[in-house]
């Protein structure tokens, strides 16, 4: 199986399969079903400097090609993740994990990034500037090359670990934003976050959350 080996921003993986952030919690749940070390790695749930409750229900709507979600970055906050989740993860997962972070300002991105980058388990920082499901921060940073570069620089300044910027497809020219991130010191880009979507009732009424479409 050696031909599946890949090098992701300087870290060797024995295969290129990584579960996407938000679909895999902090790893423990899936560890009950199969040995998650079979994965190359995974990106854990988007983690913010402070705990966030997320959006009200319903957060999920099925559609023929996948699902719409509007979770809204529910997470216990970076300190609780380091205190509670990472030690539990270490018991079941023995590879570097990708830390997915989100925040409201470049300063806050740097705060979450610095704390997580200090954790030995964390291999890469995946910086979510593309979440369509939060009002403040998230996608607004990923829609503008200047703002994207500013977040990249803020995170770059606090760590030597690989910084991967997660971009939104909901923009006119994603290449321009990717280039801005690269110029600001990003090691890679993660493509893509969810597409804006809405499920429409044939009778003309919107049904379910009008948010990110996943699983395509």
């Amino acid at each position, binding site marked *: 199986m050696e031909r599946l080996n890949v090098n992701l921003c300087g870290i060797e993986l024995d295969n290129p399969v990584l579960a996407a952030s*938000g*679909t*895999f*919690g902090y790893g*423990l*749940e*899936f560890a*009950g*079903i199969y040995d998650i070390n079979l994965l190359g790695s995974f990106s854990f*749930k988007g983690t913010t400097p402070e*705990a966030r*409750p*997320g959006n*009200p*229900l*319903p*957060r*999920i*709507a*099925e*559609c*023929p*090609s*996948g*699902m719409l*979600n509007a*979770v809204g970055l*529910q*997470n216990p906050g970076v300190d609780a993740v380091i205190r509670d989740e990472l030690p539990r993860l270490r018991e079941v997962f023995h590879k570097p994990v990708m830390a997915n972070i989100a925040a409201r300002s470049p300063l806050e991105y740097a705060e979450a990034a610095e704390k997580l980058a200090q954790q030995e388990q964390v291999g890469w920082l995946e910086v979510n500037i593309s979440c369509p499901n939060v009002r403040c921060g998230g996608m607004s940073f990923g829609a503008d090359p200047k703002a994207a570069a500013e977040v990249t620089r803020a995170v770059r300044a606090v760590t030597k670990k690989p910084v991967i910027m997660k971009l939104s497809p909901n923009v006119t020219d994603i290449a321009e934003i990717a280039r801005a991130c690269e110029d600001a010191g990003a090691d890679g880009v993660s493509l893509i976050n969810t597409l804006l979507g809405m499920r429409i009732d044939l009778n003309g009424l919107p049904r379910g959350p009008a948010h990110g479409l996943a*699983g395509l």
Partner: protein
Amino acid sequence: MDCKEFTIAENRPLTEKVHYLRLAGDTAAITMPGQFVSLSLPGFFLRRPFSVCDRDAGSFSLLVERVGDGTALLHTLPAGTNVSVLTGLGNGFTCEQSGDQPVLIGGGTGLSPLFWLARELAAQGKRPVVVLGFRTAADVFFEEEFCALGICPVLFTEDGSAGRKGLVTEALREYDCSMFYACGREGMLRAVCEATHAPGELAFDVRMGCGFGACMGCSRPTVSGMKRVCKDGPVFRKEELLWNA
């Protein structure tokens, strides 16, 4: 939690909308009444969650109401069909604190997890009272099955066409209830909490993504923050709950 292949052993109608299904396979992970399973259906992206109505070593049963495309398909699957099932999901009801006369309240298919619970409580020498609510006489099901356990249910219909006319909450005032257990729509669960001072456990039914705690698609507010209905629930104690205004 376990992910296993099951074979449909029985699939028969109880009413126009509700089917009884029994699925044969390895049920070792299903340990508590109130737990649920999640079925993968051909052609559907998300699994469908259902409460376990009862179980034995080689099979479990479900009561499935047809509400949309997935449940409509499930009703048509013949015996012999193989289905991938996540088993042993969620926390389940606790029996230790039930007291001598617990009251079990189910609305529609919400009665499903109460069947195994009633059987379990009776086996522990307790005297559970089962109260079931339906819209109308044609919707009533599982009355005889509860009677066969020796626990004939108190029936309510909204229009009075079977049993008593009214809502299940009325029964709560009539019994010296040591503790209640309830499963049904959120509105009914809230009304039940407001109708009694007794402690209680409530099983919720919300839209789910993964069904086992990974996606945060199902969280509801509690006094200790947002909790995942699929993993921290579906059963919550009355005092844990916060209700949306």
